[in-house]
């Protein structure tokens, strides 16, 4: 996968991902300040705009960097800043390479999760996006050769979202709810799961055959 393939894949994914904006906004209204839906929809639109004007010969890291900048500035929320920082941390792992080998996606995901952990001063079990991200990153890194790393990551993220539902929120506005946060589903972790599911729905071979026009 070169930079142009990655750019196309991201845009495919975001079209599907924004359809979850309302769901994410609702979850965030219950636990946070309710702006996650806006962050996702405005952020996705800004990313698509940025990628549309990026040179076709950009490296994968340059593609991700453009995404990070666009996402951070579209709606400068805490979530947007953390995600943008995570994308930058992940892109550093790739360096200047012009095409991605199999193992590099996992390394990206680990670096991205660690960035959010460090910047957000949070860890697994705090009921944040990390409850989906770290297990998914592990699954990507440890996926057997030839197996579906993406399926393994989706399963791991989903298990993380479900498990964290019963936890008490420890970070951010959600933590102010204290034990009333128990039983509510974390919007950040859900967003990460929906992103992976959107990727699968739009970028696996079966999805691409039906999408036709999108791939060149």
């Amino acid at each position, binding site marked *: 996968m070169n930079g142009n393939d990655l750019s196309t894949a991201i845009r495919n994914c975001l079209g599907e991902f924004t359809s979850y904006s309302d769901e994410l906004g609702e979850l965030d209204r219950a636990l946070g300040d309710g702006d996650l839906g806006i962050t996702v929809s405005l952020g996705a639109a800004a990313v698509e705009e940025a990628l549309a004007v990026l040179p076709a010969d950009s490296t994968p890291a340059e593609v991700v*960097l453009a995404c990070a900048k666009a996402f*951070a*500035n579209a709606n*400068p929320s805490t979530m947007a*800043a953390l995600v*943008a*920082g995570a994308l*930058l*941390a992940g892109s550093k792992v790739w360096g200047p390479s012009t095409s991605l080998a199999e193992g590099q996606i996992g390394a990206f995901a680990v670096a991205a999760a660690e960035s959010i952990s460090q910047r957000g001063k949070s860890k697994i079990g705090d009921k944040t996006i990390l409850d989906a991200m770290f297990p998914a990153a592990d699954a990507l890194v440890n996926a057997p050769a030839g197996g579906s790393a993406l399926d393994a990551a989706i399963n791991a993220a989903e298990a993380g979202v479900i498990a964290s539902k019963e936890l008490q929120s420890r970070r*951010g506005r959600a933590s102010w709810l204290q034990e009333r946060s128990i039983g509510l589903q974390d919007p950040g972790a859900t967003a990460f799961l929906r992103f992976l599911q959107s990727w699968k729905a739009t970028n696996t071979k079966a999805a691409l055959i039906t999408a036709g026009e999108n791939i060149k």
Partner: protein
Amino acid sequence: MKKIINEPSAFVDEFVEGILLAHPGLLKTPGSDRRVLVRADAPIAGKVGIITGGGSGHLPLFKGYVGRGLCDGVAIGNVFSSPSSAQVLEATKAVSGGAGVLYLYGNYGGDVFNFDLATDMAELEGIATLTAVGRDDVASQPKERAADRRGVAGIMFAFKAAGAAAERGDSLEQVAAVAEDIIDNTATMGIGLSPTILPTTGKASFDLDDGEMEVGIGIHGEPGFHRGAVETADRIAETLMERLVADLGLTSGARVAVLVNGMGATPLEELYLLFRRVHQLLTEQGISIDKNYIGEYATSLEMSGASISLLALNDERLALLNAPAESPFFKEA
């Protein structure tokens, strides 16, 4: 609620425009975004740059501290909202003189996340950054959680000292160390008598009954640790000073800088009443005041109330406070 205001949504951009028109020789905007301001002589080759920023509504924080011997640039957001990482980056690029840039701002989640992201972006531009975060509000967390305290008026001392260190040619690491040293030795506590009215909503940011005061209030109206009947100026000074002197562990023979800060709607006369009692209390304890500042240094729109900050002094810190500085708001000859 009455305000001298035009379109509420234009409030920030219009007051910044006023500042720029009033001080054309001192400040400039590097790009089209009025919320990013830098010194008129930026960038200065070989000098460490200092960037601050935060929400609007606190003048002279943050824009009032941009100038010679102080900060080099500032990025502000909406009232009580963080600037974006892009704005911080724009300010960074405009002041970078090749010696690196220090980010010096108050400890609030949104600001931290956006400045942190700006450090990533600056690195991609080849600009080295370090960060020092003001955390002087002793009411916001106990001593053992000092790292989580809010940053309030006492950050002025850090602007002054770090600005002087940068001006004399210190390296990025040295300027950051000066800022950290000042922050570690600064303690602030405030009281509020009446709330702030937000321009966009026209609503009070918190409720406080007539005859009540909030002890330990933050500069966005964050609740303190005690709400009770309004007390005399002397009694208020005693309450605040007891906490501040204990927090810094000051004993007889210590030297301090004192800042008595008005929150936006409190008369100077009342600030001098507070300072009078502060002076008496410190003198009784054998602590000398080597430097004092009385006025509005960090406000919360029209909140009425005041804060007292103490900085424990040594020769080095005092020399940095006494170094020349000039901004539209701040002057040290």
